[in-house]
């Protein structure tokens, strides 16, 4: 690991870091009101545990991680919960999100704390992961991926190298630089805890060579703590060397496979600030309730780094940095390459907020966009070895399948291609557009599959119900028909009918027996009498009659 490698592309950019590293880290004032979004990390939003009116202590859990990929949120100071509602948050969409509002009481009173300190050496990796998860620690390098979820790779036992990322390659940002200068011992102890959790053979802290003070400070701390198995190395300053995959390439010469993770090649990366958070969780039982934010740029009076409680309004920080200059043109969260513009400074600082960059009016004026001239400069600078031009065509024409074939999702959105583009095409915006569209389509497809299943099931159910109804009806009809036949039989031996018939028979017998001639047989003509005789003869001798017929 003595010889460093290099990644393709990248840019040599002006650092502008000295602007904000002149003074020590300032502690930001405790604001009257903290607004704490429940989603400050990648993954699912945390589940709220408090109610409006509750009094909470500093460090108390306000919202619990709802999943493996989620992070708990804690009270940054003591006070009363005064609201749980949607508030504007720092997001490129400018949309609101669910936040907990906390009215601070000024006492900054801690909950009971029980730090395990050096005892961590006797704890298993899972016990320590539990502490990190409960502390709500997320990767502070920018992606805010829940650290406990990332460290679960300790189960694999295939990790051999831990890389601590202190590169901080993006211009203007200096929060990691000042942290390394001032809290080097804490970082080294945090790294030792990580070493214990992951049981790796090699540990490297990589720092860009434009931060000699940070390197010296860490080396001194490592010596004092006799952390001999931690290598502190200086790497060439080149943007975006702080990108996870780029840093791995520089240090080990290995490439992370496309769609793969560093853990696939036995490497795990953590940011220096994350290591510091882990130290605080283990040694002080302090959850992730603050972070260092660089407030800098050409439109602020006193650029500096602040240790800020999560939920502090950005406007408070701006005023503590001396306020905007007259030439203020815009405010960006993050750096000039990967950050996004904010519409207002009345937004809370979150775990992801590493820098507030103020731009002068001249800086915010964007040059006119022209047509692509196919110069290929974007491909030369792409640190992920992609074809930015092709990705641009396919993204802008919504040909997402082809864009994915060209590994759109390996794009790290570093902004190198947009920076060098002589036509000033906002290339990264096209890739972001394509990525979010593809995610939306995937979600829709999942929903459609679910709907298809439900529809098919419903159709089956309706058909089954219909068949059952018809079967029932048929059975009923059969039963009815059977009943009718039985009724017919029953009618034949009906007592009423039988009685009537019996009565008739009796009358007839009586008539026959009495021998009385019928009353209408007097005064008949000869012809009529003849007919009667014939009839009588027929009646007495019916068989002969039938035969003659």
């Amino acid at each position, binding site marked *: 690991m003595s010889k460093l490698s290099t990644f393709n592309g990248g840019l040599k950019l002006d650092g502008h870091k000295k602007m904000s590293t002149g003074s020590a880290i300032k502690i930001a004032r405790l604001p009257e009101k903290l607004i704490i979004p429940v989603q400050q990390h990648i993954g699912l939003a945390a589940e709220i545990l408090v109610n409006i009116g509750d009094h909470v202590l500093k460090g108390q859990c306000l919202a619990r991680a709802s999943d493996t990929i989620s992070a708990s949120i804690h009270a940054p100071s003591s006070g009363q919960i005064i609201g749980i509602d949607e508030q504007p948050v720092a997001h490129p969409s400018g949309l609101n999100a669910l936040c907990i509002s906390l009215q601070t009481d000024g006492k900054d009173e801690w909950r009971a704390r029980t730090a395990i300190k050096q005892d961590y050496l006797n704890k298993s990796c899972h016990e320590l992961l539990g502490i990190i998860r409960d502390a709500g620690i997320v990767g502070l390098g920018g992606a805010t991926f829940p650290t406990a979820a990332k460290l679960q790779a300790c189960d694999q036992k295939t990790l051999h190298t831990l890389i601590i990322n202190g590169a901080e390659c993006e211009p203007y940002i200096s929060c990691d630089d000042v942290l390394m200068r001032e809290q080097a011992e804490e970082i080294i102890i945090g790294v030792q805890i990580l070493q214990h959790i992951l049981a790796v053979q090699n540990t490297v802290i990589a720092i860009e060579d434009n931060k000699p003070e940070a390197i010296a400070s860490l080396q001194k701390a490592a010596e004092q703590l006799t952390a001999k198995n931690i290598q502190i190395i200086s790497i060439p300053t080149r943007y975006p060397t702080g990108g996870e995959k780029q840093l791995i390439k520089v240090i080990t010469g290995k490439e992370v496979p496309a769609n793969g993770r560093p853990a696939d090649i036995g490497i795990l990366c953590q940011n220096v600030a994350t290591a510091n958070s882990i130290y605080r969780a283990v040694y002080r039982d302090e959850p992730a309730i603050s972070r260092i934010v660089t407030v800098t740029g050409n439109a602020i009076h006193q650029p500096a780094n602040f240790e800020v409680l999560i939920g502090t309004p950005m406007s408070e920080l701006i005023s503590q940095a001396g306020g905007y200059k007259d030439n203020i043109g815009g405010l960006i969260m993050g750096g000039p390459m990967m950050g996004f513009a904010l519409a207002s400074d009345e937004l809370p600082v979150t775990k992801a907020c590493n820098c507030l960059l103020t731009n002068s009016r001249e800086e915010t004026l964007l040059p006119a966009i022209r*047509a692509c001239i196919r110069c290929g400069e974007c491909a030369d600078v792409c640190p992920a070895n992609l074809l930015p031009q092709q990705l641009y065509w396919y993204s802008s024409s919504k040909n997402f399948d082809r864009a994915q074939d060209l590994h759109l999702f390996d794009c790290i959105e570093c902004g190198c291609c947009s920076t060098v583009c002589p036509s000033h095409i906002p290339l990264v915006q096209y890739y972001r557009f394509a990525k979010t569209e593809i995610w939306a389509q995937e979600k829709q497809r999942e929903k459609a599959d679910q709907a298809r299943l439900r*529809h098919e099931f419903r159709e089956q159910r309706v058909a089954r119900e219909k068949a059952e109804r018809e079967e029932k009806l048929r059975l009923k009809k059969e039963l009815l028909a059977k009943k009718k036949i039985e009724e017919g039989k029953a009618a034949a031996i009906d007592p009423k009918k039988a009685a009537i018939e019996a009565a008739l028979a009796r009358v007839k017998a009586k008539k026959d027996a009495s021998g009385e001639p019928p009353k209408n047989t007097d005064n008949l003509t000869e012809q009529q009498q003849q007919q009667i005789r014939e009839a009588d003869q027929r009646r007495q001798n019916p068989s002969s009659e039938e035969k003659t017929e």
Partner: protein
Amino acid sequence: MTTALIVLAALAGIFGLILGYSAIRFKVEGDPIVDQIDALLPQTQCGQCTYPGCRPYATAIANGEAPINQCPPGGETTILQLADLLGVEPLELNPENGAESVVTVAVIDEENCIGCTLCIQACPVDAIIGAAKQMHTVITAECTGCDLCLPPCPVDCIDMVPVKSETSNWKWPLPDRVDAAPRAK
């Protein structure tokens, strides 16, 4: 001469056996193209295409009875995907079938619901729960926004509300296009 005949007959016999075996072993149930088309349709089961559901429309497309531009919920995306699958030219969405609109979900005004179960019977994906003379409600996650529950409701207590835009489902907009940009090949 006879050798040739025997060889040819033998070959014919062997290939016949192979073909016969494959016909049984690799038998394809149903029409796979219908499944492929159905997989691209949004499964709202709304009937705006004039067919009683997504699968009947997929079958009609597969049989060449219907054009690919009759699905408003799928919109441009679905038309492009169908064109890609079937190797035909993409068409504009047929305005007779409706316009592509924002995704909505049904919401029952529970105050006014009389519990008639008519909407439950109309819902193609069983996304409404309730019983006779009991209040009904929509399972938002399962609702496809097909509008089919609206006509049967005797008290008009169902509203279609657009799905709320949140930070989790927000999409980056397409940047303004460059003038005279060369066409992608």
